[in-house]
């Protein structure tokens, strides 16, 4: 109990844990096979069997489904997420920094920000559809709102949690203007900014999938939507798996960027 330092999804797990985990996975796979293909306890209208899932994967990857092949869906979704995310972050981080730095900016912006903040990202979807229709523009708008709020909040927190003595040291050293922003404020707030980016990215991804579920021409949400309408459980599962994989890859990429951007941080 004392030495245990692992968390769900945490880094270091013992060798025993790896074996137990692998064994559990194997048992689950066998159980899945037995319950579906072998005995049919779970009907394939409810949950797909392993061969069905593999077939669905082949179909999506090679022949295409819901107006596109796997890579087209993934690329389209990723492109929209990156666009909305980038637009939100370029607006949100500077605003958050300014609000953290100046109580006056904070006071002025807060009424607007506090109005937007409690609205869940997904609740922007109907408004985006009314304003911009079912196309890509509406999705970028929704993603923008989803990613904007966390990037503002965390950049703000980043500035507010800078150690006061670091600010005093920088004043003592005569740092001014742009150089202060670039060399003190930004790096000091960077850990929080990255927390915000991670939350923003996750919110962007969730929101996009939801928006695509409501209606889209292409994208993983479209795959989910089409397979739900076709009552095609194997394809639903494949859609979910790739929503997970794409989300995981994005989050990991961001973690790599963070490690490059902040080499001074220890573990």
């Amino acid at each position, binding site marked *: 109990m004392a030495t245990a330092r692992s968390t769900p999804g945490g880094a270091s797990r013992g060798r025993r844990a790896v074996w137990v985990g692998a064994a559990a996975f194997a048992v689950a796979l066998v159980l899945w096979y037995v319950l579906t293909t072998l005995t049919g306890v779970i009907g394939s209208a409810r949950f797909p069997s392993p061969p069905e899932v593999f077939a669905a994967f082949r179909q999506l990857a090679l022949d295409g489904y819901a107006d596109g092949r796997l890579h087209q869906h993934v690329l389209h979704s990723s492109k929209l997420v990156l666009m909305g995310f980038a637009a939100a972050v370029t607006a949100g981080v500077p605003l958050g920094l300014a609000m953290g730095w100046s109580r006056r900016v904070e006071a002025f912006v807060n009424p607007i920000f506090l109005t937007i903040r409690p609205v869940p990202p997904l609740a922007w979807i109907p408004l985006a559809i009314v304003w911009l229709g079912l196309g890509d523009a509406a999705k970028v708008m929704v993603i923008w709102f989803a990613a904007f709020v966390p990037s503002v909040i965390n950049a703000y927190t980043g500035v507010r949690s800078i150690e006061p003595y670091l600010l005093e040291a920088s*004043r003592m*050293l005569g740092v001014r203007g742009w150089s202060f922003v670039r060399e003190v404020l930004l790096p000091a707030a960077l850990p929080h900014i990255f927390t915000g980016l991670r939350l923003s990215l996750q919110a962007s991804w969730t929101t996009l999938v939801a928006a695509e579920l409501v209606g889209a021409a292409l994208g993983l949400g479209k795959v989910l939507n089409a397979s739900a309408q076709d009552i095609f459980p194997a394809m639903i599962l494949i859609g979910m798996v790739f929503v997970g994989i794409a989300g995981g890859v994005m989050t990991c990429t961001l973690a790599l960027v963070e490690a490059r951007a902040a080499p*001074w941080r220890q573990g």
Partner: protein
Amino acid sequence: MSNIVFDAVTRVFRRDGKDFPTLDGISLEVRDREFVAIVGPSGCGKTTCLRMAAGLEFPTSGRVSVGGKEVTEPGPDRAVVFQQFALFPWKTVWDNIDFGLRNKGVLEAERRRRVGDIITLMGLEGYESAFPHQLSGGMQQRVAIARAYVLDPDVLLMDEPFGALDAQTRTVMQEELVRLARKNPRTVLFITHAVEEAVYLSDRVVVMSRRPGTIREVIDVASVRQSENWDRLERIEEVMDQDSFVHLRTRIWKLLREQQAPNDH
């Protein structure tokens, strides 16, 4: 000439509509190239004195001036060494030391020379491209002292710089500071609550009273140091063994003990 003058300085904090006086009529001059230490019970406002000299806080009444100019803002002419080191974690040792010079607009070639010199002087060679978190506390404080010294400041303000270090490191740093100060004399205001440290390092020790802080007594160490020739002694424990040192230390101890309320410790 760069002296620090506190002229009838008072400081009052307002909280919940009530006034809390923290400093009451401090008048003191730290003369050019003099090393003055302030000791006093915690909360007596000694750190506030230093921060006012730095321009990080301001007196409620009275005047603080450095080199004849009233202090209105912080600046590299009054370099501060903070207790928490206050190094920028995202800058290497070299960049931390170089930062102030860069802000002053010193040319690159000169910067390189000065930073290089101070790194040698402080025994930081080989650590130029290390980040602060990779260094021990003692090494970090060396960097912080180097960062202050390299600016060639009029005055040096040190706020319990060794307070966060362990006993051994602290001793080494004290000896090094004496060496540095002798090679490179500066006007220094040094805040500490360690009496030995104050006596060992300074020319004069200012003993402050409990809040609201006033100057209880100013003790001349320099004359004793000279007459007893402490400077011939290499190590701190040898100095601390001298009867004259023990005598001064005990005197300051007694003054501080008188400041304490019966149930205060």
